[in-house]
């Protein structure tokens, strides 16, 4: 294996890393000038510093977006199949597809940063965002526990910084601290779990673990190892009861960070979680059927799924802040997605991935709308959204597409995703053993309709409050961001009408 070949296979990651460094360098050099100016004209014209910072932001965003676009291009040219260092870096159609999806989500997150005024150091922020993207790609493309852990840590450390990035906002710092404490705790458990698995099997490659475990019965130590390994991912996908960080992080973090946590981080976590349980722990599947539970990972995930669906949906009912509401609904959606993994096999995995991908697209779009509304009204409570239809029909229309898709209304992507998941779960077991889980999920989506419709009621029916109407900050509507939101809404609609465009691709890419 020559280094040249290694570079070729890891070209996508390399491009993103280089872009991150370039963005960082630009951010560092121009920021100094900007602060210099600000210091010089201490109380004078603040606009100078402001516009300079905005320009830096624009340049850095442009370079980051360009780098991601090039990286997507290189990902398209990757070979169909390759394995490096016994599974540390694997290239299959599935990994290439999800690298592209992750980068596309990062691309939209970059577009969101453009309008985020609170970010005073856009260069650093974007560099960290790109490094987090590298973490996502490592996670997606590795089939080896150590490498997965490293990817998890790279992603986690970047995200902690991204959440706490807004130093002027106390809530951002609080959210960052909470996210960090939870993240490091769960990482510790995951590492412990991985070492237990290693102790039992003597190897860290997923395929090899599966072979070793095939002959072993489920002993308590192994069960502890499995549960602990899964905890790190349960934390990342915000499954109850490991979701407690999510509402604060979604509400307090800068919006691009929140969007990235809700989308890219979640998609990659589901990909790797699926690989671990379906490839690595394949012999320890167990059975999650109601009357005939057999120990293994699937009852554990089923319990997490049911709890997440119930907790997420019930608590979301009582929210009056849109970002908190999205956080709790994210918990519920993590629960739905887990059903696909519980169902197991190729089809269950592809249903879960279809669902999480469409969910990620929807949520980036929803956060895009939140960002634009927040820019205009300086808040993201329900009251800030009241009467949005009269202020911006386009945003209101897009938001209704996103909300209805989350609620699972045809013909939007969310409906087909749910339909696919539930039908796979029902067919997974000859005796409809997962019926109880599907029933819980249907009950959950019934409840969820209520709070999604409340959002739409606020947008379409409520009178705009006076404070908003007289808000002076109407200047410079961010056209690029509006286009991005509209594109995402169109994608959600398209995937609802033509789900095969993605679903067939996913199924074909499954190993």
């Amino acid at each position: 294996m020559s280094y040249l070949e290694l570079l070729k296979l890891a070209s996508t990651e390399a491009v993103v890393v280089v872009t991150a460094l370039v963005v960082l360098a630009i951010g560092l050099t121009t920021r100094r000038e900007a602060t210099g100016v600000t210091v010089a004209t201490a109380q004078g014209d603040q606009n100078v510093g402001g516009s300079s910072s905005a320009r830096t932001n624009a340049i850095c965003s442009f370079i980051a977006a360009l780098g991601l676009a090039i990286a997507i291009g290189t990902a398209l040219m990757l070979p169909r199949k390759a394995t490096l260092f016994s599974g540390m870096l694997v290239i299959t159609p599935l990994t290439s597809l999800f690298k592209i999806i992750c980068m596309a989500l990062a691309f939209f997150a970059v577009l969101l940063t453009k309008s985020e005024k609170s970010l005073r150091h856009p260069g650093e922020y974007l560099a960290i965002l790109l490094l987090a993207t590298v973490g996502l790609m490592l996670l997606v493309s590795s089939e080896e526990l150590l490498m997965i852990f490293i990817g998890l840590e790279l992603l986690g450390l970047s995200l902690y910084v991204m959440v706490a990035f807004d130093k002027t906002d106390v809530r951002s710092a609080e959210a960052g601290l909470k996210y960090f404490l939870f993240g490091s705790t769960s990482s510790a458990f995951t590492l412990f779990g991985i070492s237990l698995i290693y102790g039992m099997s003597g190897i860290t490659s997923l395929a090899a673990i599966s072979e070793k475990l095939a002959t072993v019965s489920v002993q308590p130590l192994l069960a502890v190892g499995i549960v602990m390994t899964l905890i790190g991912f349960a934390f990342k996908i915000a499954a109850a009861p490991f979701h407690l960080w999510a509402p604060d992080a979604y509400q307090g973090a800068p919006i691009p960070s929140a969007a990235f946590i809700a989308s890219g981080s979640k998609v990659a976590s589901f990909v790797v979680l699926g690989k671990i349980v379906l490839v690595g722990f394949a012999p320890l599947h167990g059975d999650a059927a109601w009357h005939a539970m057999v120990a293994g990972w699937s009852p554990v995930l089923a319990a997490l799924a049911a709890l997440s669906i119930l907790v997420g949906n019930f608590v979301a009912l009582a929210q009056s802040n849109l970002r908190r509401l999205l956080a709790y609904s994210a918990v519920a959606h993590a629960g739905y997605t887990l059903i696909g993994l519980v169902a197991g096999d190729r089809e269950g995995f592809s249903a879960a991935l279809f669902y999480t991908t469409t969910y990620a697209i929807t949520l980036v779009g929803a956060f895009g709308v939140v960002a634009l509304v927040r820019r205009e009204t300086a808040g993201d409570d329900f009251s800030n959204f009241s009467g949005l239809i009269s202020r911006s029909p386009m945003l209101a229309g897009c938001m209704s597409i996103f909300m209805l898709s989350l609620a699972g209304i045809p013909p939007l992507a969310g409906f087909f995703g749910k339909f696919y998941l539930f039908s796979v779960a029902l067919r997974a077991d000859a005796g409809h053993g997962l019926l109880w889980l599907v029933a819980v999920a249907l009950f959950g989506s019934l409840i969820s309709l209520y709070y999604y419709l409340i959002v739409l009621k606020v947008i379409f029916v409520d009178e705009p409050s006076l404070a908003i109407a007289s808000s002076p900050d109407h200047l410079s509507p961010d056209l690029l961001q509006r286009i991005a939101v509209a594109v995402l809404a169109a994608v959600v609609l398209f995937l609802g009408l033509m789900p095969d465009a993605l679903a067939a691709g996913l199924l074909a890419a499954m190993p």
Partner: protein
Amino acid sequence: MSSILPWILLLAPLCSAACITLFALRWKALSSFISIMAVLLSFICSCLVFARADISAPQFGWIDVAGALKVPFGLTQDQLSKMMLVLVSGVGAVIHIYSLGYMRDDEGKSRYFGALSLFMFAMLGIVVANNFVMLFMFWELVGFTSYVLIGHWFYRDAAAAAAKKAFITTRIGDFGFMIGILMLWMATGSIVFAEITPRMSMLTSHPTFLTVVALLIFCGAVGKSAQFPLHVWLPDAMEGPTPISALIHAATMVAAGVYMLVRVAFVIQTSQTALLVIAWIGTITAVLAALIATQQNDIKRILAYSTLSQLGYMVMAVGLASNDASMFHLFTHAFFKALLFLAAGSVIVMLHHEQNIWKMGGLSQKLPITFVTFVAGALALIGCPPFSGFFSKDAILALAYQRNVPIFAVGLFTAFLTAFYVIRLLVIVFFGKPRSEVARESRESPAVMTGPLIVLALLATLGGFAFFARRFLALPIEKEVAVFVPAVAIVALILGSGLAIVLYRNRASEPLDLQLLRHKFYFDEFYRWLIYWTQELLAGVFAFFDRWIIDAGAVSGSGRGTLGIGALLRLIQIGNLQAYLFLFGLGIVALIYFAVFH
């Protein structure tokens, strides 16, 4: 031979609707131009498709859940659908042009033409759908567009109420339709017509199941084709603009139900019980509507009830297991009923939207072209030889005489009633003296309106002759009864017409007073009562449930509970985080316990 012509003819109206709604709402002339061009394009493509024997459209997949559900986007191109394409787009084109005159000064002209294009798209979609999912989708789209068009003058309470009534009533039928489709899908595992047909043999051992499926699918047609007992929406739908009444409620949308029955005949004809029910529903509708029509005073309502009655004939023919007879009547009816509505529209618009026939009178001199064309349509409707309606109605009556004599008797009585109320209408509106100021001052309509009338009058006159109709569809074969049935039918016709002339000549007001018929057998009152009480009852139950269980228990309980906990936890920042981590740890312990000891 594969060709994209079918796709063009289907998508042209959709593009037109999209263009008008998105860009051209402000320019009325442009909207009407786009819409008319689109429908003409559809019509030309339909003719081209019709002229080529072996045409097929490229098909592509839409939904494909392996093993569970496969929905293609494919277009049926057989003789039946091609004939309907020409019919729908042809009548549609004529009515589009007529609308130019009728809606000349309307405020919402762009909206009207946009909706009209969308309706054409939906209707053509029903015709070419090759599977149940597409069919149902376009079916619902037709329902929606008809809602929009009936409620075009939504600021009038009656129009808004009629639109709602039409939508909700047809939805009731569609509910059964959907269940029928789902049952068929469950049983055969496919929703594509061509794939279900060979699999029907698997089901012959379950006759009850087949009957239920056939009747549920028939429910859809009962709603859409306004059959008893869901017929109540069609007369009210006359609140819409008259071209809409002509297009939707005479020639196309209501015919969709009959067309659908013919399309899925492979299901329906497997059950004799279902066929019998269908035949009787059609017969009851036919006679009921004809009875009600004899006592109505609104020109459009009389025509609406005559539509109901004729649809009853078509459904009767379907129930008698003759698709040919049914389609033949659908074919001729589309022409003469569109003609009658448009001619009535010409009368109405020239009398400044006066629809009461007792305010008209003596219009044969004032509106000569309208009068002549109206007479052609009326004679076709009552089945007077040699107008088109004679042939098709005769075919159905002959069929009934062979297969089911009671139905034949009722059908004959209906023919008598039809002659009676149509001649009554004719006598009151066009003869005698003008009975109001507007009727005295009326004059003939512009050419853009009379042109379509003349075209349709020709078609209504000639449409029934075998040399013409055979080009379009397979004609039913008549057997030995060929002399007896027409003879009886003509006697009924003469009796009915004669009675009407004797009763209504030179009258200024209604000589008969039949309250039961005037109030349409009290159907509306009965439904209102039924809905009121079920609604009250259900609402009471749900209000109780909502207030005491959902609101007090689930929502407020859990919601306020969590809010309270959240507020409490937020008070103590440190405790908050520790509590979180404690829960985190507790979760891990619980999961391990669950995994190890379960």
